[in-house]
């Protein structure tokens, strides 16, 4: 009998804590490991975020996640010509390093989910279609002797494309040049046409990350998503700061489309 109750409780707990496909409010992740990567969900090629910050990995919809970059990430551009692309020496930048810093979220990207093994081919095309935010965005790798190798830069024309080899897991340096809310319009696709595009939400510096972004995104009906987030109030401060940007973001999110051949 106690065993039965235990089992029932466990099931209930599972139901409660198994992350729903769409959480009520975005999950703010400020430290620990996450990866952006493709999976097959109900047979559909889907771009999701693997969240390793809890006891086991959980895959989340990008719309349900905000990556928060705290001030531990704040540093200054070194006086080194190799890093001039980040700004003038001494200017402030927020850097999520290629190698884990316990105080910060550590975002990477991977093509290792077993569900895609059969369909992925040699590599996945990773595209950046645009970035909105108060500053610039740079994603680069640091080579052997400190030579930076740019993967994406908001200073370059869109779309930008890089390849992620099948079955790999990579980390890079994510740099933002001003505090505030950023939306990265990203896509991962296979050579034979499976593709999914999503908005990766990143919040830099002070302010409430959960309210820095419009909360109504893709799938579920509005009533399941209202409540807590709305109740916290409209983020007037950020809207004022962002101005037109937030409007652009709403447009961007609402036109988030999913193409799928699988």
């Amino acid at each position, binding site marked *: 009998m106690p065993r039965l109750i235990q089992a029932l409780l466990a099931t209930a707990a599972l139901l409660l804590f198994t992350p729903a496909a769409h959480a009520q409010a975005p999950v703010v992740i400020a430290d620990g*490991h996450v990866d952006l990567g493709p999976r097959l969900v109900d047979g559909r090629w889907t771009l999701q975020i693997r969240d390793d910050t809890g006891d086991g990995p959980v895959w989340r919809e990008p719309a349900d996640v905000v990556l928060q970059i705290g001030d531990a990430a704040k540093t200054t551009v070194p006086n080194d010509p190799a*890093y001039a692309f980040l700004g003038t020496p001494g200017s402030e930048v927020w850097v999520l*390093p290629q190698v884990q810093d316990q105080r910060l979220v550590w975002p990477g990207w991977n093509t*290792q989910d077993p569900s895609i093994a059969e369909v992925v081919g040699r590599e996945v095309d990773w595209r950046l279609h645009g970035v909105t935010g108060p500053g610039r965005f740079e994603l680069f790798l640091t*080579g*052997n*002797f400190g030579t930076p190798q740019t993967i994406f830069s908001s200073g370059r024309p869109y779309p930008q494309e890089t*390849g992620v080899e099948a079955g790999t*897991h990579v980390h890079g340096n994510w740099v933002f040049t001003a505090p505030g809310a950023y939306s990265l319009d990203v896509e991962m696709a296979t050579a034979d046409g499976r593709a999914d595009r999503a908005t990766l939400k990143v919040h830099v510096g002070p302010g409430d990350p959960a309210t820095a972004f419009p909360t109504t995104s893709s799938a579920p009906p509005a009533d399941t998503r209202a409540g807590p987030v709305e109740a916290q109030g409209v983020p007037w401060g950020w809207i004022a700061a962002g101005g037109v940007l937030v409007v652009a973001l709403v447009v961007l999110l609402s036109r988030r489309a999913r193409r799928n051949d699988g």
Partner: protein
Amino acid sequence: MRAPLRATASLCAVLLAVTACSSTGSRGDDGLSVVATTEILADLVRNVGGERVRVDSLVPPGGDPHSYEPTPADAKKVAKADVTFTNHLLLEEQRLIKAIDANAREGTPNVSLAEASETYGAHVIPLVENVGLDVLWLGLRVRGDGKQRGATRTSEVRLTATAVEGPGKLVAYLTESLGKPVVYFDSGDGLSDVDSTTLPPAAHTHLNWAFTAPGTYRLTLRAALVNGGEEVRLGESTFTFAVGVDPTGIAPTVLGQGHTDLTVDLDTGELYTFNDRAGGTTQDVVPAAQAVIEVPNKAITTVPDDPRFAFLGAPGASVHQLPQAVLGKHVHGEIDPHLWQDVRNARAYAELIRDTLRTADPDGAADYDRNARDYLARLDELDAKVRETVAKVPRQRRHLVTTHDGFGYFASAYEMTVAGFVVPNPAQEPSVEDVRKLTETIRNLKVPAVFMEPNLAQRGSVLTQVARDQGVRVCLLYGDSFDERTRNYADMMRHNAEEIVRCLA
């Protein structure tokens, strides 16, 4: 544009041709006119097409497809052709591909074999852009939750280098985001408490692993779990590295590709290697004593003239280094074009050629089928013969040093390694560093011979000079074309296998 998309486009061209050509029958009295870019492709077409086709190769006998520029006469040949075959953009000179695309008659099949043959089962290798990155990606990791040892999320794992044996220094260091190096372990100034690092539970990090002289190294790492002030001792293991030397026989498992972490397991207390095999989605454990980590000569790099890296040695000194980041080793979306060096790929080419000819000349379908069947059987025998021949060379001597990077498929198919080459593409000029790297590769591996390609005699002067300086033989492998002695693909592959045995065994 991705390769498979182009492949699809090529197949579409073939399908279009069904309707375009079947009724009119463009085949003239002297047979179906086929133009191929290289002699090797022309030979495959001849074997499948038999007497029904007349084949011309644009690159002349002994010419180098990487540098051959088309003439007006070539454009004319292409314009008259009923079918054109190219290999792949990165093999032929771009102007050659353009001449074909611009002059091929509308509606005639124009097939890029390398890409389209993938659907016929060809094995394709991504094009390596930076060989220095085409090595094992080696990191550090902590696995398990260690709850039974009292570990919490705030615990730390201390990893200390307690011994290094080897002919030179071993330095493990991280170059931080903005270019500053941080040393984890450095055997150059003796090992002490500073040769240690702390990692959080579930940590995973990547480092540069530098070695200042070639040879075998053994690194002993000791792990401890730190809970607040209390330190719980975990295991100790010795990891072996084969730096610049052949790893065969040092330990049962050679770790030379993909991704490996030297891993502390908080649950078992052990230290072992934890490996992602290339392209896989699963990981496996290999105990430290069962594994040897390969640091090949392509990992040779030069210490920069930057005081922050003085711990590696004097500026300009040579070190073997596994890099902290390997992204960028391949050219996005591109493939190594030399597919035919694997006979099974030539088989896929032959099948694609058969289907293309059948479409262009349906009346000859039965002939093409029969010719292809015979030729495929001969290719199967050839593949077995090449494999059996190369197997006579002891594994630890199966190193290829060549003029250009044209033998990746041969090495992959017949279990050899590409130890080095003068330059990746014969159209490039070698730098002083390229020559030094080549010299060190020959010396470190003690290879008895290097291989020149007959059509690259000019480029071969660097290879010949280095070989003479090192006192090793210069042998001959056919890469991208024939010469006056070897006039067909099967002879070329047989020669290559026999030459490898003659010069390396």
